[in-house]
Structure formats: C-alpha cells, structure tokens
C-alpha cells in the first residue's frame, strides 16, 4: 500500500442499506394488477383492453409532458404513472369511450399529481381525481354498463368505445341486450340494490359474474393479488383490513336495524368495487396516513363513509368519494394520531 494513494469517501452512518427502490415497489404493484387486467380483458374483451391501454398511455404521456415542461428529469421510469393509468381504467365501465379515457388519464396526472409536485406530494389518489373529474364531466358514459362475457367480445368493440372525440357515444342498450348471455339489466349490483331493491347473490359477486367496472369484478382475484403485495411487503395490509372492518361494522349496524331495507354486510363488501378500492386505492401510500392509529382511523372512516354514501347518497360511486374524503382528512388524522414514543412521560414538562 503506497502512502498517499488512498482516496477516501466520507459519509456518515449508516453505510449499509437494504430496501426495495421506489421503482421496484411500483413495478410490483403493476405486476399485482396484471392478473386483474387479464381477467377483465377476458371478461369484457378488446374494449377493456383498449381502454386500459389508452388510460395508461395517457397517464405516461402526461407525466412525460409535464416533466419536459418543467425541465425535470423524466419520472416515468418509476412506474407510478403506469399504476395510476391501470387503476383508473379499472374503475371505468368497460365500454367507456376511449377519448374520454384519455381525458381521464390526463386529468389524473395533471390535476391529481403534477399540480401538487409529483410523486410523494399528491394529496389525493391521482386515479380517483381523474375519475371524479370525468364523473362530473361525462355522467352518462360513466354509468353506462355493458354485460360481461359477451359472445363476440374478442373481435368486436362495444359500440360506445370508439366514439369520436367530443362526440356523444352510441347508445349501447340495444347492443347489450343482443350480446348478453342471459337477461341483462344494464345495471350494476349497487344500482339494482339502490334503485330497484334487488340484492345480487354474494357468491356471484365474489367470483365476479356481474356487470360493473373493468376491474372491480372478481373479489377473489383482487384478494390474491393483494396478498402477493402484502407478501412482498409492498402493500400495507392494515389499510384494506381497516376499510373492510369499517364497512362491515357500519353495514352490520344498518342491517341489524332493518334487514329488509338495508343490504347485508357481505353484499356491501363484495359489491361496487369496494374490495378493489380497499386493496389498491385506499392503500395508496402517499395519500394515506403513516401513523399506526391513523391508518386504522383512515380505513374505518373510508368504510363508514362508503356505507353512508351508498345508502343515503344520490350516487352509487360511494367508495371513490369516501377515499377522496379520507385522503383529504389524512393530514388532520396524522396530527392527532402521532405514535406514543418509547419511554414517553405523562407530561412533557415532567423532566427530572
């Protein structure tokens, strides 16, 4: 060893690290969403595939565009825009016009994420911001449901899918009746419950044999995909668990009061994309609390609001608003739920 040829790099401890990178976490969330994507394409055909591709590409393009606009290094490699695109598509009806899907993707990234300063700073789940926007902008298209497992779904688009930009999509009611395997009502289980008082069988809901958004359908598959992420330690299981607990308790309360009027907790849990929202939407790391008690409060709040909005609100898209509300309440929840530290004294001034 020569005397002065050592170059020494100075840093402070710790010198070792072991953590998945942000990109690895995001990529794994994408992997976990892929089975749901395949299942929904199987269910709804090429229209769903086209919609998923369009929203995802729209999200990526928007992110790239704003990075370019603000002269920042491109952040599309962290895969968070891909997740937003996939999540967004999963919440839309399969026959949703593609151009509206592109608008939704743009809004999600532009208003839900970039506006706040990009990944890590968004107050709300970007995908839900996008959906909330188009819910207001295109109220008809977003509540037009088409049947699953249509006969020609792999060769033929749902008529509304290919609507030209700024054009009204073709009505699908007639088409739906033609392609449906058995009697199709054009309503989701939630709408049936709300407006016609029909409760769909829980078992059908669990397996996903119902009408609904692109990704909300199979509870079983959602749980399996969520379990993969929990196993990889990339999903905080406490959030879905708390949402489920909040929903079940609130629903049970009403069901107990009047079982004839209010649906059972099982129905509440398995319908309307609640499972999807609990596992993939509410658990958005950035927009949910970090404190242990806060996570529980947040989840229960989301569950409770979902039930209230579903039962007493004018709309059926309860989970989305419940989560957005929960996101907004996150800072205040965190303020009041700071963890008790080791060796905490009863009174702060009680120092000897």
């Amino acid at each position, binding site marked *: 060893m020569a005397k002065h040829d050592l170059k020494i790099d100075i840093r402070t401890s710790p010198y070792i690290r*072991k953590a998945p990178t942000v990109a690895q976490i995001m990529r794994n969330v994408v992997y976990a969403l892929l089975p749901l994507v395949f299942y929904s394409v199987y269910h709804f055909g090429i229209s769903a595939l086209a919609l998923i591709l369009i929203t995802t590409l729209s999200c990526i393009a928007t992110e790239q565009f704003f990075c370019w606009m603000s002269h920042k290094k491109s952040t599309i490699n962290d895969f968070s825009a891909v997740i937003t695109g996939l999540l967004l598509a999963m919440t839309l009806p399969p026959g949703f016009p593609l151009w509206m899907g592109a608008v939704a993707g743009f809004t999600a990234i532009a208003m839900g994420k970039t506006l706040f300063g990009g990944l890590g700073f968004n107050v709300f789940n970007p995908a839900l911001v996008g959906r909330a926007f188009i819910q207001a902008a295109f109220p008809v298209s977003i509540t037009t449901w088409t049947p699953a497992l249509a006969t020609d779904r792999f060769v033929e688009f749902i008529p509304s899918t290919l609507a030209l930009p700024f054009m009204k999509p073709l009505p699908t009611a007639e088409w739906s009746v033609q392609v449906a395997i058995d009697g199709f009502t054009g309503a989701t289980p939630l709408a049936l419950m709300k407006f016609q008082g029909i409760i769909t069988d829980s078992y059908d809901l669990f397996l996903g044999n119902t009408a609904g958004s692109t990704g909300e359908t199979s509870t079983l598959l959602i749980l399996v995909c969520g379990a993969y992420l929990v196993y990889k330690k990339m999903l905080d299981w406490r959030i879905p668990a708390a949402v489920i607990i909040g929903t079940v308790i609130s629903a049970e309360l009403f069901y107990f009061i009047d079982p004839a009027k209010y649906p059972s907790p099982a129905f509440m849990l398995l319908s309307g994309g609640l499972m999807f929202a609990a596992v993939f939407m509410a658990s958005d790391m950035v927009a949910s609390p970090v404190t242990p008690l806060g996570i529980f409060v947040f989840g229960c709040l989301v569950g409770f609001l979902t039930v209230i909005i579903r039962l007493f609100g004018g709309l059926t898209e309860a989970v989305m608003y419940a989560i957005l509300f929960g996101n907004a309440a996150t800072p205040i929840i965190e303020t009041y739920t700071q963890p008790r530290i080791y060796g905490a004294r009863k009174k702060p001034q009680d120092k000897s």
Partner: protein
Amino acid sequence: MNLLKLFGKKSFPHGIHPDEYKAETNAKITRRLPFAPEIIVPLAQSIGLPAKAIVFRGQHVARGEVIAEADGFMSVPIHAPVTGTIKEIDIASTAKGGKQPAIIITTSLSSGQRVHDSGECNDFLQMSREELVKAVQNTGLVGLGGAAFPTHVKMAIPDNRSIHTVLVNGCECEPFLTTDHRVMLEKIDNLILGIRIAMRTVDAPKAVIGIEDNKLNVLTAIKPYLPDDGTITIEAVETKYPQGAEKMLAYSLLGIEIPSGGLPSEVGLAVFNVATLAELGALLPAKQGLIERIITITGDGVKKPGNYLAPIGTPVRFLLEFAEFIGDEAELILGGPMMGMPTRSLDVPITKGTGALLVLDKRATKRDDILPCIKCTQCLQACPINLNPSELGLLAAKRQYDVMEEQYHLNDCFECGCCSYVCPSNIPLVQYFRIAKTLNRERHLQDG
C-alpha cells in the same frame, strides 16, 4: 403489544434484521498486534472534558503510566499505551473530524514493553462506594461499546435513587462486530469479577447479562462461572438491530422503559457493556489503567479479518497494513456499519471507544438518487422508539428543526439508522436528524 413475547422470545418492537457478516471473525481468537512505531493518544477520547497532559516533550514514559490526568469528575485519566518517549504534544487528526490535542509517543524498540507496576492493588471488598467510584475513574475506563461515556460517572448513583439490576450488555447488535463476543468467550473470569465490582459500586442486588441469540455458545461458556445464589444470570434475547441499545435491552430483558430524556438509574438500572466490565475486572484490582482494547478489523477490503488486541492510539494505517488491506478505493469506518464514524485520514488513531475498523467495498455502499418520500411507513415500522421519521424527514427538508424537536421528539432519536436503512427513496433520514440536532443545540446555546 409485542407478539414475540408471546412465543417466549425476548425482544422489543420494531427494529431491523441486517445481514450479520459476523461469521468471518466471530470464531477467531483475539490476537495481539505489535506496537506501532508511533502512537497518537488524543486527549479527548470520551464524553466529558478532555484529560490534561502531565508529561513533557522528550520525557520517557513507561507503559501503563498516567500521561494525562482527569480534569474534574466528568473526565478520565489517560495511561501510556506503550513504553517510549514523548515526541510531542500537538494537534492531530482524529476520527471525530477536526484536529485535536494529542500526545504523540515514539515507541521504544529496546524496551520489553512490560506494563508499569505501581506495586499496589485495590481490595474492592474493603472499599466504600465513593472509593470505588474514584478507583474506577483512575482506571480511565469509558464505555467500550462505542459511546465512550466515562464508566465511573455511570456508577455514581445519586443518593435518592437505588439500583435493583445491573444490566450487562453483551448484545453487540451491529453487523460485522465480534469484539464483545470474543470477550465473553475469552475473558469470562475478568467479566464476572467486573460485574461483581459494578454491583458493589452501584449497590445492586443482581445483575443480568443480555446476549443476542446468535451468540448461544457464550451462554454455555459462561453458565459454569455464574454464582449459585442466582445474583448473576445470563439470558438470550432476539438477534435484532438495535438490540444493544440500552433502551431496547432494558425493555427486552426486563420490560422496563427508560424514560424519555432520563437516565437508566431513574428506573433502577445501571447498564454496562461486557467489554467495559471485563476490563474493569482486570484493571481495578491491579490498580492499572486502560491501555489497549480489542478491535474487530473486517470487511471486504481486508484479507486478514479478525479480532486484534491493539494499543490505544495505534494509527489506522498500521492496522490496515497488518490486516492486509486490498483495493484502492474503500470506505473506512471506525465502528460498525450502522453507527460508526467515517475516517478522514489514515493517520487517525483508534481510541478507547473504537470497537471496529471496517473496510467496506465501494459496491456495498453505492449512492442512489434521493427521491421524494412516498410515505410507505417502512421507517415508522423500523424505528425502535416509535418516532415518525417520515414526518421528521419532511420537516428537516423544510428546515423546521424547532418543530422537529418540540412536536416530533427529535431528541429521543439515538441515531441507530434503522430509518435510513429501510427507506426506499434513499432519504438520508438519520443524517438529516443529526444535522437538525446539531443546529438546535447551537440555537439553544445562542438563546442562552
């Protein structure tokens, strides 16, 4: 609620499980290193005031002789690590950063390097507690686990407090480090004697040795030496970082929390590292001073990793040559990989608190871009004292250091580094907290 307790494994909540890297050195018997031609003895080696030099240039000193005396109670004397001549008393680079006053000794080649013998000895059984504290101070002992807190200060328990248990910390939870492990296998007699002296000094009826369950051979080795009356026991706790922090060990072994901002004596505990007590057992009865310590030299960058007994003040360069340093770019750390100090120069000496010299390969520590916090809660789930590092990190980025201290318990952070270890965004959290604490301290000084 600690689930592990239900299964009978003693531990604390949170923490991390880093790879241990201990297998390379934990079975290697401690070897004595030769004396470096020049020894640099910094006057400030412990927490508290630096020692005052009492030697002059050109003076001949014998190994073990006092060369700097304690400056008041919060200070310890320093003994000559080698027989030789005082070259000069000057400022020298130290591991702490800037240059500090140090006594530089040229090692005598002709001397046999026998330890200076005063011919006296301490009969600790006949000594009062005050005399014992004084005798401990005279050994120059400080916490050898890394903190370098003067041992006698810990032993001077205020009259209004009584100690029920001496906690003997043999966890050594930092990866790579194996010095305590070797001490517990090689110096059991000294350790038990040291524990007895400590128990007497703090007037504690019992002592518990806590080890991590990756050192179970220590358990079988020590058990035969324990007294039959059960006053000294040994227990294994879960292998987990930072189990060796006194707060964590107190909770794991006894379920006691040391109050925030308080000392262990507040809840009837006195905590000492095993190596410290082993030295105490060796030094105090013989009325000698601390002149050498065991140090683990390991990492990817050395060909001969092992545990070495080295005189205090041996320059890092000498140690590295001995352990056959390889590679041209390396990261040198005095201490463990989680809490150790980086070295600024190869000429810095090891001091009383240096437990390891780690040469990490560059690849193991490659730098990545810092990304925004995604609030994944990993840091909250790693923090052993249940802080909110995520929020603290965001506040640090905004330089709201006062808020960090007043509302988010910044001063309870003991800088174990778990949060930085698990952060997917590569945020240097604990590094931020160190800066925040330093600036707060300065601000408080200015405010008076």
